[in-house]
């Protein structure tokens, strides 16, 4: 770590804004890491999408023979795993990494190197799981990995799944700790918790959900791993093990996971709707509290995934009622979003279209969710295509639409050039039509008795028509994604320059240049209100009409005069990627014990090198990044140097300003 004593005007990492490959690999800059998260996530999104297309082609007609049962099971297992763990979570992390620090007026996250480690662990985990394709086949135990099926030790495939998820879990856990710390300790002066943008709030809630839910599934993963490899008996019914335990441990994580996937999208929408309605978010505090409530209740409803497992009427009643209650905060959010648009001056650029699409589609998913809380009805819907339809309306109509809203909203800020609006609108309408064409019929299919995860279905069951429609729809979605990729590449090259504040935005990220300088703010902003930037641009007259103020609240870095800003930044480090490499090497070795012991030793060697290198990079702070593996105990200590320079911020001193 560069010492604080003699600080170069701008640190090496800062010297070259873009930099070569090495600059990216060793970068500890939250913005670079955010971009890498985003690109990697999109790549996995395409992979998962291709898997989905194969699934739909196989099911387009009865008794499909395009792929074998074996291949089909691998396809849907990896489609689920990829989309959940390798697309939605990382792309939410991409937005979080890039914008949370800027939105709260910080220059980086609390632990930049730990942040890089999280990213490289995510890459390692993703590559690890996917590499099974070349090493005996992809995992084929469904993304929920129910034991004892997942514990049947014949095939190596589920070992890839278990270990890969463990690695991804560590990555997310470290990320969560990092974000909790960043948001609690590094907010700019005056940025009280209740002046934070809703997006930052939702990321905070997500971080807590991750921190508290990941360890639970980690326990289950270790149990399956040991059952498969060391003859433990956790899920062996013959000797008294209980397969249902896995379902509890998995869904104790798995249900909060659903909110981990959707809350960031809700945060994005809560930023986009006000901007393009030219009104503040309706009921800011209620939206925040509703988000927190959803997160909290999310821990109390896991067993509604087990209504057919035979929990008994009492437990079923309890969890049914708990599940119903979640509809209340969800409703609050939806109503407040509509309230935000109400009476606004609404323009419809692509981000807004996706945001409105989110609200509309997510509402449908929410309503079908209520029908699941009606336990007896759920015994018909459970594990049928009705459920598939439901969670795609939540996670595609919800999360993915929200994510694309964010992509179109912030692309200009990140790359300096706006995405093309015409192509963007084409993308939106194609995706909206394709999405509904694909997943609306699945409600009908499920109610008509089609179970999920079946590789073929018989003719004469009355499922042919809607299955075909769904397949057609899935290709419309694929087309829309193609349109998006073209738009992204084209606009990155020669899109129109974004400028600092293209949307007349409300939050701090719009005060910086596009893309922001690598130190984010030349002057740490001083915050006085929710939507601080807006209220530095507009006042309000007595009847609450906005009045343009003739101020220029942009950060100096966004202004033309390029002055020298003496900002000390953490210097790059290759130890995070090295540590991730070591961990994944150990994982590979584990798969081929005893031969693998050699590989594991090698991996451990790399890990030790990385850890000590990490530690000695800054002699003040030894044993850095200790034990990233195992239960995920990575009590890291990144040097306080680059963080202690952050101007400390107000901690949740209650009521949101601005009102």
């Amino acid at each position, binding site marked *: 770590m560069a010492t604080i004593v003699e600080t170069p005007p701008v640190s090496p990492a800062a010297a070259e804004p873009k930099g070569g490959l090495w600059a990216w690999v060793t970068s500890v800059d939250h913005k670079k890491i955010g971009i890498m998260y985003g690109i990697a996530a999109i790549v996995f999104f395409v992979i998962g999408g291709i898997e989905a297309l194969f699934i739909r082609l196989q099911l387009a007609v009865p008794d499909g023979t395009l792929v074998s049962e074996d291949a089909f099971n691998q396809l849907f297992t990896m489609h689920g795993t990829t989309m959940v763990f390798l697309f939605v979570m990382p792309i939410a992390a991409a937005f979080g990494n890039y914008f949370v620090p800027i939105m709260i007026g910080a220059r980086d996250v609390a632990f930049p190197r730990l942040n890089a480690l999280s990213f490289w662990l995510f890459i390692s985990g993703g590559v690890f799981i996917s590499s099974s394709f070349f090493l005996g086949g992809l995992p084929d135990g469904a993304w929920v990995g129910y034991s004892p099926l997942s514990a049947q030790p014949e095939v190596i495939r589920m070992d890839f799944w278990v270990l890969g998820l463990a690695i991804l879990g560590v990555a997310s856990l470290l990320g969560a700790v990092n974000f909790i710390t960043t948001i609690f300790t590094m907010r700019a002066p005056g940025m009280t918790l209740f002046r934070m943008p809703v997006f930052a709030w939702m990321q905070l809630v997500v971080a807590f959900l991750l921190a508290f839910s990941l360890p639970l599934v980690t326990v289950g993963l270790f149990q399956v791993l040991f059952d498969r490899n060391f003859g433990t008996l956790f899920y062996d019914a013959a000797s008294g093990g209980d397969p249902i335990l896995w379902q*509890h441990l998995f869904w104790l994580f798995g249900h909060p996971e659903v909110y981990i996937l959707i809350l960031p999208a809700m945060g994005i929408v809560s930023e986009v709707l006000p901007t393009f309605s030219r009104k503040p978010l309706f009921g800011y505090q209620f939206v925040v509290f509703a988000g927190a409530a959803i997160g909290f209740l999310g821990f109390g409803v896991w067993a509604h995934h087990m209504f057919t497992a035979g929990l008994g009427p009492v437990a079923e009643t309890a969890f049914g009622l708990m599940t119903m209650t979640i509809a209340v905060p969800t409703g609050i959010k939806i109503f407040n979003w509509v309230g935000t648009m109400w009476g606004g001056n609404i323009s419809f650029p692509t981000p807004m279209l996706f945001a409105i699409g989110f609200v509309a589609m997510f509402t449908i998913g929410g309503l079908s969710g209520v029908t699941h809380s009606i336990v007896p009805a759920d015994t018909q819907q459970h594990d049928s295509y009705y459920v598939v339809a439901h969670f795609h309306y939540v996670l595609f109509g919800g999360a993915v639409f929200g994510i694309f809203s964010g992509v179109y909203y912030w692309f200009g800020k990140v790359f300096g050039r706006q995405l093309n609006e015409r192509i963007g609108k084409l993308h939106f309408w194609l995706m909206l039509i394709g999405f509904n064409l694909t997943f609306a019929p699945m409600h009908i299919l499920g109610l008509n008795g089609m179970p999920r995860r079946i590789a073929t279905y018989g003719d004469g069951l009355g499922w042919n028509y809607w299955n075909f429609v769904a397949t057609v729809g899935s290709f419309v979605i694929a087309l829309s994604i193609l349109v998006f990729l073209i738009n992204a590449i084209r606009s990155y090259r020669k899109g129109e320059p974004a400028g600092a504040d293209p949307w007349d935005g409300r939050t701090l990220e719009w005060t910086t240049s596009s893309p922001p300088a690598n130190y984010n703010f030349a002057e740490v902003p001083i915050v006085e209100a929710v939507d601080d930037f807006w209220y530095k641009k507009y006042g309000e007259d007595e009847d609450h009409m906005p009045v343009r103020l003739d101020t220029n609240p942009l950060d100096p870095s966004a202004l033309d005069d390029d002055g020298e800003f003496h900002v000390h930044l953490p210097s790059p480090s290759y130890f995070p990627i090295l540590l991730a490499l070591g961990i994944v090497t150990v994982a590979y070795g584990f798969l081929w014990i005893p031969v693998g012991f050699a590989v594991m030793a090698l991996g451990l060697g790399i890990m030790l090198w990385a850890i000590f290198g990490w530690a000695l990079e800054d002699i003040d702070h030894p044993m850095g990044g200790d034990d990233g593996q195992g239960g995920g105990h990575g009590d890291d200590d990144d040097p306080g140097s680059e963080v202690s320079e952050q*101007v400390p911020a107000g901690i949740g001193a209650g009521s949101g300003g601005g009102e």
Partner: protein
Amino acid sequence: MTATTENPETEEVQEEYADHLSPANYWGIALFLAVVTAVEVAITYIPDFDGTVLVVSLLVLGAVKFLTVVAFFMHLKYEPFTMNFMFYFGLLGALALFIAVLLAFEALFDSF
């Protein structure tokens, strides 16, 4: 303000509780913990002291030790609200969830 301003508050906080407790206090607390442990072990050997009474008293004594270490050895008592919130929230969460799970297995009350 320039970016490289050090953060004085943090230091102050440390001073603040640095001398909340003296080594003497710590020895005292340790003694207390040792005694509680001794009592825990002892009561398991009292023949006609068992069943619910034993279970409850053991759980209580364990909780006392747990909280004493957290509050004083880990200084959580002197830390800001945020840290207390995170830890105790996690603690209560864990308790609630796993009581629920064991109830679902009807395995809670025959656990002891």
